[in-house]
């Protein structure tokens, strides 16, 4: 173990600490019924005050770290979702909020729906619910942040039992 190695370890720790403590979100609705979007906005209001965790909603994908997606992916919104994901600077994370984002939900099999979020972009955390409560969204976010902190593999397999929930 030489000095450069130790120095790099310290730098990595500082980087991870900063990353965990300042997740800036961008929110995209790729075809949801707006139920989940209302819950996400409720999470950011003074009652739940996500700013105490460092969460800030950003307008520009260039400023954001976490892409919060709701709803199934419709044919029209696939390109937009892909483009927003590409516009974000690395390291970037994706959170799928709600049953539709996980499995297509009530829109499964519709003629204009491609499917769930991770058929288009890789997803790091899933928050089930129709719609999930603000507490559930904060919990999912904290799980994502814990995974970043401990260095656990974040791109987890989608829980199989969630696929059956329609």
């Amino acid at each position, binding site marked *: 173990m030489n000095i450069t190695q130790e120095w790099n370890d310290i730098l990595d720790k500082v*980087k991870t600490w900063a990353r965990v403590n300042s997740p800036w979100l961008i929110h995209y609705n790729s075809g949801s019924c707006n139920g989940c979007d209302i819950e996400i906005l409720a999470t950011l209001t003074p009652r739940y005050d996500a700013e105490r965790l460092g969460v800030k909603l*950003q307008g520009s994908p260039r400023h954001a770290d976490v892409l919060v997606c709701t709803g199934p992916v419709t044919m029209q919104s696939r390109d937009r979702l892909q483009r927003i994901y590409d516009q974000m600077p690395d*390291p970037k994370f994706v959170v799928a909020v709600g049953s539709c984002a996980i499995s297509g939900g009530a829109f499964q099999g519709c003629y204009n729906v491609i499917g769930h979020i991770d058929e288009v972009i890789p997803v790091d955390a899933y928050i089930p619910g129709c719609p999930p409560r603000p507490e559930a969204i904060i919990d999912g976010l904290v799980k994502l942040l814990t995974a970043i902190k401990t260095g656990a593999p974040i791109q987890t397999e989608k829980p199989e039992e969630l696929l059956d929930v329609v």
Partner: protein
Amino acid sequence: MEAIGNIVSLLFFPGGLFVIFAGLMYEWLDHKIIARSQNRIGPRWFQPIADAIKLLTKEEIVPDGVNPVLFAILPLIALAGALTAALYVPMAGLKPAYSFAGDLIVTVYMLSLLTLSIGLAGANAKERFSLVGSTRALTQLFAYEAPFLLALLGPAIAAGSWQISEIVAYTETHTWMMILQPIGFVVALIGLMGKLELPPFDSPEAETEIVAGALTEYSGRGLAIFHLGKGAELIIGLTLITAFYMGGVSNPVWFLVKTVGLLAVLAALQSLMTRLRIDQTVGMWWRYGALLVLLQWLIIVVVQLV
């Protein structure tokens, strides 16, 4: 020995690291006071530091169609301007590191470099939101700059000098300028809010209309440096106004008490008011701000002649 002194004043105090760190802390205090007045808990004390480190370690995307040299150098010019201005103000209640006759003008124009850089950065990107944001930022610059400068020159005329250290020496021994020149104080305070693009003057970066204004295309390092520059400008502006209008800053304790008090007033104004349209901002400054300050000047001159 002198060389060591110069390096310390450029890199650590009162330039460089001290201003950056103090700026981040004042930014946190500002956010915390706003959060408390909205009945929230608000961010933790290290929040701006974590934000800055995270942005500095993120990937920086240079978009197509920009001039890459300008894209990289504009944030640095903005931060350098703010840090240079810190050398001429009585930071933390101590004497300015450097001082010469007329340094007030230099300081005020060093502070405008930030807005100018943001405007150029927005115009550099080939993107509509950046362009709208930069137009608004530059329009706002022309709106508040003249009244702000005139408001800071009020105490200078009373003191009979355009050198910051001499003005501060004058204000420390006389009645608070805030009481003698109330109009100038109000205009200077609101001018600082316009300079920092705080609500209600945040139409250049209105996230509900134009995404993030001129800085929409900036990610990572550039965005972080612009943020640091803004924090530095917050603390320098507060120092200037307390030194001129609130009876000077004779020692670090008074400096802390007075600047934090002024910051609380700024935060209260921010949480009270909603965003003005850009034409309302310009109209307000030129119809009322500039005229009121000129009236203030007239009164000062008449009082001094009599």
